[in-house]
């Protein structure tokens, strides 16, 4: 039985802040005891650097670190653990693909296709690579509701398109993009696709092989894991042909002053000492998440989204931004002329944590002609009562500013 109140009790932050209504899960999720303990246990009892350590502690640390790679692979349906590259987060994963996979393939006049609802992290890396190579960044428009028109997308693809980079779930609008169809359309023209799964991987059943996606990236901290951890999945044939872009220890085969040969995939992309304790924590986060049936999670979040949306719609002057048919548990809105930061400050004083601003999607805000929105984003430990409390607090704020 899926019980958000019981789940909430597994998150120590809520014992320290019993009044906290945490609706900022799209920014980062809270951490369950199991994740905090795994990280802290590692430092207290198991800490050593990984790879080539001969003594027992180091061997065990390496083994645990590599075990998480297998956990991640099975979590997203990757063909083998070697397809899983540890990164510091979604941002690093995308930059690595842009620099290492794409830059060398781009000729002047080539095109990269992204959508208008990309997070800056899935926009700027491509924009800069295009600029460097004299290629063009093309942007799939979104409708007023925040949806992509597949026919328009299809028309944008041509023999000049060298990459499609897409957000799975929009962090600002909550739109769930029809990525299955979009990947198929791109592949029919042999165009590789990167999927930004930062907002989707915690809640949606995901199978990178079934999706046949070329690259899949996400962050650990948005799925109950530690900050500074992330995953890049790449199809083996892509990763094998990619050169590293960060050089140093731990990523080499042999080194002389004249030349270096690099380690095999994925080590060649993991230079220096990585966030070992973080990776162990990420493993614990995935173990925690895998205890639940994702269909239960989805049903719960759908219920919360509907409760919140219905309650918010009753408020005069409140406008929901992003009304896609297929939507995740992210509700962005404007409240009359009250600035989002004023809304968030007043909500904060009522212990309701939300985010306000452009949500790292400035071009999308420009499209809607908005300086920003207030955004409530829900997770497994939120309740319908919290969604209703949000609506009540918003009514007070509206009265105050009227």
């Amino acid at each position, binding site marked *: 039985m899926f019980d958000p109140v019981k789940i909430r009790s597994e998150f120590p932050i809520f014992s320290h802040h019993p009044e906290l209504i945490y609706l900022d899960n799209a920014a980062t999720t809270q951490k369950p005891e199991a994740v905090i303990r795994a990280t802290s246990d590692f430092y207290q009892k198991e800490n050593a650097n990984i790879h080539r350590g001969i003594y027992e502690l180091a061997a065990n640390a390496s083994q645990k670190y590599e075990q998480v790679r297998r956990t991640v692979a099975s979590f997203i349906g990757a063909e083998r653990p070697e397809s899983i590259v540890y990164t510091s987060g979604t941002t690093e994963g995308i930059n690595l693909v842009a620099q290492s996979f794409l830059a060398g393939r781009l000729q002047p006049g080539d095109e990269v296709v992204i959508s208008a609802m990309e997070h800056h992290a899935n926009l700027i890396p491509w924009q800069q690579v295009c600029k460097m190579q004299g290629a063009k960044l093309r942007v799939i428009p979104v409708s007023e509701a925040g949806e992509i028109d597949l026919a328009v997308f299809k028309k944008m693809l041509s023999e000049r398109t060298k990459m499609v980079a897409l957000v799975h779930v929009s962090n600002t609008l909550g739109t769930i993009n029809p990525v299955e169809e979009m990947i198929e359309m791109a592949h029919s023209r042999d165009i590789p696709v990167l999927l930004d799964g930062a907002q989707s991987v915690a809640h949606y059943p995901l199978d990178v092989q079934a999706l046949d996606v070329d690259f899949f990236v996400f962050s650990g901290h948005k799925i109950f894991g530690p900050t500074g951890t992330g995953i890049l999945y790449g199809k083996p044939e892509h990763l094998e042909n990619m050169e590293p872009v960060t050089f140093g220890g731990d990523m080499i085969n042999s080194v002389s002053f004249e030349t270096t040969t690099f380690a095999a995939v994925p080590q060649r992309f993991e230079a220096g000492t990585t966030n070992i304790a973080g990776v162990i924590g990420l493993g614990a986060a995935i173990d925690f998440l895998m205890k639940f049936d994702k269909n239960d999670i989805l049903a719960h979040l759908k219920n919360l989204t509907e409760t919140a949306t219905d309650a918010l719609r009753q408020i005069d002057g409140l406008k929901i931004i992003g009304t896609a048919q297929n939507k995740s548990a992210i509700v962005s809105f404007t409240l009359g002329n*009250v*600035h*989002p*930061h*004023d809304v968030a*400050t*007043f909500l*904060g*004083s*009522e212990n309701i944590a939300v985010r*306000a*601003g*452009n949500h790292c999607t*400035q071009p999308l*805000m420009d499209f809607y002609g908005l*300086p*920003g929105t207030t955004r409530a984003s829900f997770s497994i430990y939120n309740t319908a009562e919290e969604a209703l409390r949000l609506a009540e*607090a918003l009514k*007070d*704020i509206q009265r*105050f*500013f009227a």
Partner: protein
Amino acid sequence: MNEQLKALYKTVILEHNARPFHFEKKEDAGHVLEAYNPLCGDRFQVFLEVKNGVVTEACFHGYGCAISKASTSVLVKNLENQPVEKAQELCRSFLKMTNPDSQEPVEMAEEFMAFSATRDFPGRLKCATLSWEEMTLFLEKQTVENEN
């Protein structure tokens, strides 16, 4: 709702937010300052005329939260007809009053003091000081240019 927060907004901020002082564009002004906070997107332009070391006209335009809009409004209102040195003094006092690290007590008129409450809301401090900091930089340049 939080009483302290209500008090912060009630005094001056709601009034200036609803009815800002000289809220208009003047593209051909002698000086145009831009106060922009990339972290939140607040962006105001302040239009100034300075003649013989005196601010003769001031107005502003742009978009931001209630606190940043009101604080810019109060700034613009109190600049007009002030010699640059006086304006600098005003900016210094305001920034000292809103600085949580400053121990020195600052007495200013109620209109300014309202913003001292942002010291209790660290996330909103920049909203109060954004335009004032930009103005301080501009006024410094003015005095340097005058001296040269």
